Structures are given as structure tokens and as C-alpha cells.
């Protein structure tokens, strides 16, 4: 198991290298440079800033310098934020984005599994139909469209909630709701289907017939087995929450990493572009790894060698 985790983490290195190479190539293909202004810099000043940031060197040299820096954990400095280290900017943004994403993920997991389990245990009752209806509609409206509809209703018409910003719970309600409805619906659907399948298994009947209390049957036998397919979708869901949050950050004016990424491309802030892309890639790979480890925890039949 440990060897497996280590191998998967080592696999992250070539992935990051290739992603870095692709991003580096693409971002240098974007026309224009970081110091192009309506009013051009004097040629000498231009040459000076370029030398200062190593942009006068050939492209391969810039890339290898960057990779050597990266290996030492240094992501360089941002051009647009007065030489602030990229690592510090990403860390600040990640705290905000991470908080938003994790709250939304927690809501989605608890509400989704709860709703799906309840629907499966009360199959073909009003409760079941309500939860299926919610899951069907909720799973097809993206966060950003939902966010807009919430804004219209609660900010533009009712004036109950602020349109944007970050820091108070009132500012968090709409972005968290917008982000979590889709994964909640999705998780509820998968949970309901998985639980219904497990409910038909012989071991559930055995557990009941040997006189186990219903909550023991549900928690020990049903939930533990029924959660495996749910875990499968958690990886993509977590990754989508992290990367998907950036349109929501833009919409609700939340100072997370997503916003920096969008502005850094238009500013040709090379260090920021590389840093945020590599950061997101790491998050996606690690999220998938965590899910794979969770499989082995929940299902003893799965072993990694």
C-alpha cells in the first residue's frame, strides 16, 4: 500500500514536467509580453526588465532555469503584483478557494449521501420521488448558471444577500449553494442506485434474519458496501469543485486562485500562469490518489501491489 502511494506520488513528477512544458510552450505562444503597454517602454528600460527576469535568454534556457527553481520549491515572482512571490499569492488564494471548495464538497457529500440513502430506504415513497426529481434537475444545471439565477433572485430582486465578496457567512451562502447543488444531485443519484443494489443482496437478508437491529444492518452492511461506487465519483467531483470554482470566484468576486489565473493570462504574468496550472494539476492528481486509497479502505477486496 505504502509502495503504491509512493509510486503514484512519483508519477506526479513526470506529469508535472509535461504539464509545465506544455503550459510554458502555450503561454509563450500567446502574442505580446508582460511589458506591452499602450505607451511603449523605452528600449533600454525594456531590455533591462527583460534581463532582470531572465526573459532575454533563449526559451529552452528559461524553461530549464524554471524547472531547476521549481525542483527547489521556488515558483518565481509575479510581474503584476510587484515581485510578490508566486508561492505566497497561490497560498493566499488557495486558502480562500480551498475553504469554498471544501465547504461545498462537505455539503455535497453529506447532503448527497443522506438524500440518496434516504431515498433508497424509502423507495417509491413521496420522499424518494422528491429526491429523484431534485437529483434529475440538479444534476443538469451548472454552477455558474445556478449562481446567476441565485444572484437574480436573492440579490437583484429580494436584496437578501450581497452580490459578492468573501469573509462573512452571508457572502458564502450563494457561492457554496451554486457549487454544491450539482455534485449533491450527482452523489444522491449514484448513492441511491448503489444502495438499492446492495439492499437486494443475500447478506442483507441474512443480517436481518439473524436479528440484527436495523441501524446495524444499515450502517455496517448496507452503507459500507454501498459507498464503493459513490467513492468512484468523488475524485472527479472533488477535482471539478476545485477547478470549477474559478468561474464562481469570478462571478461572486471572491479572491481565490481562479481569479488570479484569468488575470495573469491577460497580463502575460508567466510565473503566475505556470504556478497556478501546476498547482491545479497537483490538486487533481492528489484528489484522484486519495480516492484510490479510500477504495482500499472501504473495500478489502481491493489491494494495490
Amino acid at each position, binding site marked *: 500500500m505504502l509502495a503504491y502511494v509512493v509510486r503514484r506520488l512519483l508519477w506526479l513528477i513526470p506529469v508535472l514536467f509535461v504539464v509545465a512544458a506544455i503550459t510554458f510552450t502555450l503561454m509563450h505562444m*500567446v502574442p505580446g509580453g508582460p511589458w506591452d503597454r499602450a505607451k511603449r517602454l523605452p528600449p533600454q528600460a525594456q531590455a533591462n526588465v527583460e534581463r532582470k527576469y531572465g526573459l532575454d535568454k533563449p526559451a529552452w534556457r528559461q524553461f530549464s532555469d524554471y524547472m531547476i527553481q521549481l525542483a527547489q520549491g521556488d515558483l518565481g515572482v509575479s510581474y503584476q503584483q510587484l515581485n510578490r512571490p508566486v508561492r505566497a499569492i497561490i497560498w493566499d488564494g488557495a486558502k480562500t478557494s480551498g475553504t469554498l471548495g471544501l465547504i461545498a464538497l462537505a455539503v455535497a457529500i453529506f447532503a448527497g449521501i443522506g438524500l440518496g440513502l434516504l431515498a433508497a430506504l424509502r423507495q417509491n415513497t413521496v420522499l424518494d420521488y422528491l429526491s429523484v426529481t431534485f437529483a434529475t434537475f440538479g444534476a443538469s444545471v451548472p454552477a455558474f448558471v445556478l449562481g446567476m439565477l441565485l444572484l*437574480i433572485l436573492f440579490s437583484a430582486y429580494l436584496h437578501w444577500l450581497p452580490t459578492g465578496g468573501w469573509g462573512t457567512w452571508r457572502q458564502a451562502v450563494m457561492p457554496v449553494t451554486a457549487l454544491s447543488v450539482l455534485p449533491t444531485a450527482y452523489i444522491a443519484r449514484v448513492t441511491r442506485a448503489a444502495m438499492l443494489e446492495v439492499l437486494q443482496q443475500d447478506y442483507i437478508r441474512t443480517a436481518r434474519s439473524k436479528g440484527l437491529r436495523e441501524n446495524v444492518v444499515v450502517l455496517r452492511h448496507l452503507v459500507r458496501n454501498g459507498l464503493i461506487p459513490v467513492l468512484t465519483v468523488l475524485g472527479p467531483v472533488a477535482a471539478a469543485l476545485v477547478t470549477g470554482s474559478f468561474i464562481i470566484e469570478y462571478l461572486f468576486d471572491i479572491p481565490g486562485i481562479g481569479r488570479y*489565473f484569468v488575470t495573469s493570462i491577460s497580463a502575460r504574468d508567466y510565473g503566475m500562469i505556470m504556478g497556478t496550472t501546476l498547482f491545479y494539476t497537483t490538486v487533481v492528481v492528489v484528489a484522484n490518489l486519495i480516492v484510490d486509497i479510500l477504495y482500499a479502505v472501504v473495500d478489502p477486496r481491493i489491494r494495490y501491489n
Partner: protein
Amino acid sequence: MAEAMPGAEALREAIELPQRYRSLWGDAARRFSRNRTAMLGLIVILILATMAALAPVIQRHDPTFQNYSSLRESPNGEFWLGTDLLGRDQWSRLVHGARISLSVGVLTEAVALTIGMIVGLTAALGGRGLDNLMMRVTDIAYAFPDLLMLILLLSIFGPSFLMIFFAIGLVSWPTLARLIRGQILSLQQRDFVLAARAMGASRLRIVVTHLLPNTLGPVIVAAVFGIPFAIFAEAALAFIGLGLPPPTPSWGRLVTDGYSAIRSSPHLVLFSTLAIAITMMSFTFIGDGLRDALDPRTR
């Protein structure tokens, strides 16, 4: 011997069941048509497609004409869905936008399907070395954050119509490639493939008549579920300033323009987001219906 045949005759009659022969697709079509939400989705999409095709006929005004004597009107008899900040008729812009959103959705999936098919098939059929190579490429493409790749590509090549669906297709293929590879690998273990091989069918024949048709179901379902993502991606890109350049009335553009006027005329953003939500929902319903219809186990 002939006297012993009546029993065999009865047996043969019993084997030739009275019901009609059901092909996979005929059966799927029948089960799809019994699925009410799926049919609702299909009808909505057909209506939208008709509206998109007839956009120049059913438009009430020129969608790009800026009528300065009717700025920011609320919905009324002349302007069914109101007008925007520049006095353009929202209804006309919406029906023209349907053309763009629907074609982005469908064409994008065509691009994604082509790449996914090539990569998935090469991986599954090309032997160990190619499989490893292709799957590592897919892993990396999968790990690369979608929206970031889109933003980079569109910043480089500019947001033209062709580029938008090419770029979205370019980030959507890894899921399809993985699915196709997985399907083919598991089908190769099945008895009917073994039987075909034992009867001396060539490799090409096995691929074309046994493997490909059987992967088609799940692949179509996955492709249909990809359409809403493409429509969403176009809207999201427009929202961060990388959509089709104005005055092209794509739905993403309408949402973006509406958002900037959300306080004074919330109806602008309302109608365009509803259009996007309804379209995405309809495609999801169709995808759900297809999945149930094409999976024989859910019968």
C-alpha cells in the same frame, strides 16, 4: 425417422417464438420512446433546433441592430423578451444564439469523439507498448485542468468559432478515450469474441463486427453527456471574456451582457441562463434515457 419428427416440429415452433425479432437498436428506440423525461428532452431539443434553423424567419428584429430609442426595455408586445443596454431585441438574439450553442455542443463532441476514438482504439488494439504510451498521454491530458487549457488555447489562437469548438473538443476527449479502451479490453475477454476467433474470424472482422458495435452504446451515452459540458464551457469562456467576439449573439455573450446589467434589467440574464439551463437539462435527459435504453441489464 419421419414419424419421430412431430416432437421436433413442436420444438422448432416453440423456438421460433411468436414475438418479433428485436434488434438492439429497435429495442433501444422502443424503450427510449417509453421514457417520458427522455422524450421531453428530445422534443425540447428538436424545437430548439427548429428555432435555430429558422432563426432568420422567426426573428422579430435584426439581432445586431442597436435601436437607441428602445434601450433596456422590459418584455412587451414589440420586444417579447425585452431589449438589452444597446437596444437590441433579446428574443432575436436568443434564437440566433441557439444556432451557436447547439452547433458548439454537437461539433465539439464530434471533435472529442474522433480524438477519443483514435486514442482509445490504438491503446486497446495496438499492443502493450502503444497502450502504455496512449494511456500515459491520456492521464496527463486528464490531469491538465480543462478550463485553464481552454483559456490558454483561446488566448493564443483567438476566440473564433472554429477555435472554440476545436479547443473544447481538445479538452473533452480523455474520458471518451478511457471509456473506449476499457470497453474494448473487457469485450475481448467475452465468450462471443472467443467464439468468433475460434471460427477463424480475422482480427479486423472481430474489431468491426463484434467490438465496435458493442462499444457504441456507452460511447454514444458519454458523448451526449458531453454536449452540456460544451455548452457550459462556451458560456463560461464568454463570461471571462474569451467567447466569440461581439456582436455575435452566442448565449454566453448574452449571459455576460446581461450580468453587467443585472441590477437594472435582471430579465436579460434570466432568459439567457434559462435557455442554457433548459438546453443542458434536455441533453442530460436524453443521455439518461439513452443509457437506460441501451443497457440490456436495466430491462
